[in-house]
């Protein structure tokens, strides 16, 4: 019998399965052996207990920490240790973990063997890494990512919770995530389509690189201009728009990825506002060019909620009311990571306190 992940989180299933393909929702079926069908459609037999976890997928690493299982991490990837500005704040113990892989497929296999993990999490976008680890080390390797989908992120939380035996905490977080998201969506649900701002997102260090789907914008009552475009890189949600296409879209709001310190930003809001090519756009004319968090290596479950709240307040301040973003955001991080003032600390690095003041 095939059950949903929610049922599994309630404590039933032992065998974790999903339909093949990265776009298919993960599911759990009842059998005696523990197995999971991951985002690549691979069936992976799971260990009885996953006490030693090697996570080379930052999104999973964050979820493991949020589930309160950060002490089981035996190694992580280079990015989350060195370039993720949030993770060291919400999980200070990360500083003591070894980095096993760099940006893609360069894994230190001997180090992996020395760490002796029960399970290894990787990104489905790094196919060579999956095959190399599974083939050489004969350890269970699970490839998973939300691929920018709220539903898949929730499923991922439940699935990782199931694998780590943290079903109750996973269910609590999944329920909290959905409740907060529903509240934000509810606050803007009455906004008619014609009042929703058309939003262009400049992400990943280039003016014309943009996601073809970005659910935080949709949930916050905006319309992503690039929605429906084909991704320029298979297996991702990124495309490269033409400068002229941005003029065709005539966005009301332009959002620039700001999840890294100001001195590292190749694209800035000030630069776009000064760019004469875009002087006729409503977003530029009206000064509606802002930073937002965006993402690298998919999401942090708490930060994506904060971002959605921030965007809803930015797009529709009249509908969301007087939200104290810092207070709300700190409460969300407290809920997910048990850390006080995480948002305040993050904003000190990113200088995000004044992002929406224009």
């Amino acid at each position, binding site marked *: 019998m095939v059950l949903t992940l929610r049922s599994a989180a309630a404590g039933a299933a032992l065998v974790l399965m999903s339909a093949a393909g990265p776009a298919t929702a993960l599911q759990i079926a009842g059998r005696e052996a523990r197995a999971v069908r991951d985002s690549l459609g691979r069936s992976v037999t799971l260990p009885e207990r996953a006490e030693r976890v090697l996570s080379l997928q930052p999104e999973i690493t964050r979820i493991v920490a949020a589930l309160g299982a950060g002490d089981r991490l035996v190694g992580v990837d280079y990015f989350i240790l060195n370039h993720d500005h949030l993770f060291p704040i919400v999980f200070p113990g990360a500083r003591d973990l070894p980095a096993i892989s760099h940006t893609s497929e360069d894994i230190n296999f001997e180090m992996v063997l020395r760490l002796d993990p029960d399970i290894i999490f990787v990104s489905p976008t790094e196919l060579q890494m999956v095959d190399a680890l599974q083939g050489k080390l004969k350890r269970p390797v699970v490839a998973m990512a939300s691929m920018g989908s709220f539903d898949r992120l929730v499923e991922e939380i439940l699935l990782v919770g199931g694998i780590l035996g943290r079903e109750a905490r996973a269910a609590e977080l999944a329920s909290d995530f959905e409740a907060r998201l529903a509240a934000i969506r509810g606050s803007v649900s009455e906004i008619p389509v014609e009042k929703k701002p058309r939003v262009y997102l400049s992400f990943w260090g280039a003016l014309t690189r943009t996601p073809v789907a970005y659910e935080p914008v949709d949930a916050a009552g905006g319309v992503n201009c690039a929605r429906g475009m084909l991704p*320029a890189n298979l297996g991702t949600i990124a495309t490269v728009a033409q400068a002229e296409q941005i003029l065709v879209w005539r966005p009301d709001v332009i959002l620039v990825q700001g999840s890294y310190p100001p001195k590292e930003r190749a694209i800035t809001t000030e630069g776009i506002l000064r760019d004469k090519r875009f002087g006729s756009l409503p977003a530029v004319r009206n000064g509606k060019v802002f930073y937002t968090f965006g993402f690298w290596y998919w999401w942090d479950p708490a930060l994506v909620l904060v971002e959605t709240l921030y965007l809803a307040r930015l797009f529709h301040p009249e509908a969301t009311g007087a939200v104290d973003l810092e207070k709300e955001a700190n409460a969300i991080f407290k809920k997910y990571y048990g850390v006080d003032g995480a948002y305040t600390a993050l904003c000190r690095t990113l200088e995000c306190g004044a992002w929406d003041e224009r």
Partner: protein
Amino acid sequence: MRGKKGRLIVLFFFLSPFLLMLASLSIGRYHIPPLDLGKTLVRTVSPASFPEVPPEYRDILLRIRLPRLLLALLAGAALSVSGASLQALFKNPLVNEYILGISFGAAFGAALSLVFLGKGFPPQIAAFLFALAAVLAVLVVSGRSGSHTVSLLLTGVIVSAFFQALLALVEFFANPYALQSLFFWLMGSLSLATWSDLSVSLPVMGLGTAALVLMRWRLNVLSLSEEEAAALGVNVRKEKLLIIVLTSLSTAAVTAVAGVIGWIGLIVPHLVRMMVGADNRKVVPLSAALGASVLIVADDITRVAASFEIPIGILTSLIGIPFFIFLLGRSRKVWL
């Protein structure tokens, strides 16, 4: 190509980049009716005319399409002329404009800027300086060797490999934000052309190309053996150095603003030689005209073939190589 028909064909060659450029002004994701195109151009000269023309049209024509078309025109000409000149100079049909380490020198410079140096040192300037540094390294190292031509080519390969290794090292230590910007730059594109970038690079490309065109007859002399050229009163070493400097300046200026656009400098001169023979007095200027036309058409395709921007370097390789193989198969001859 002799007689009236030949002259007409040559005239067509030289007019075609400008006609294509004019036609390309109307091509793009933003539809501008032809009449409004004309009105916008008139309004640019006479601001009081046609007040009904939307301001977007002016932004698109003057700030997006015109700079990239001018860049395509001059970059195509510069790369083709550089390729033709170096092929003649080295008497080697496989030489291209990047043979002396320019592409990896420029890429390393851009990487340094994007990853470590920050906004105070723009990637365009860093790319240009390191492209020239690579050529300088080739000249200094190869200058110590006896057989100059062979050692120049070999040193070019070695210097390229060295800068490639440096580039890989920078990539390895780069943070992912800078790495994405770097990958974007490395793919090569005319889409990022702005007037401020072009204000420096276009004059360099233009002057370098014009000087090479003026020196075209000397290439015929230099393509003889060094002894024969010297017997004709040419200071071979000095002339070679001058041509290398000019091709390097032009190519580095293109690479700094548009990234590495491959195959133009190899294929276009060969196409021209297939049509007019190996006389560099014809090959060099016709390569300029054909190279400009080819890059304008390639850029048009990148703008309309998909909803997203296709890197022009990919397109020139994908279209250029099979076309070149087809022509080689038909002519069964490599001209030089």
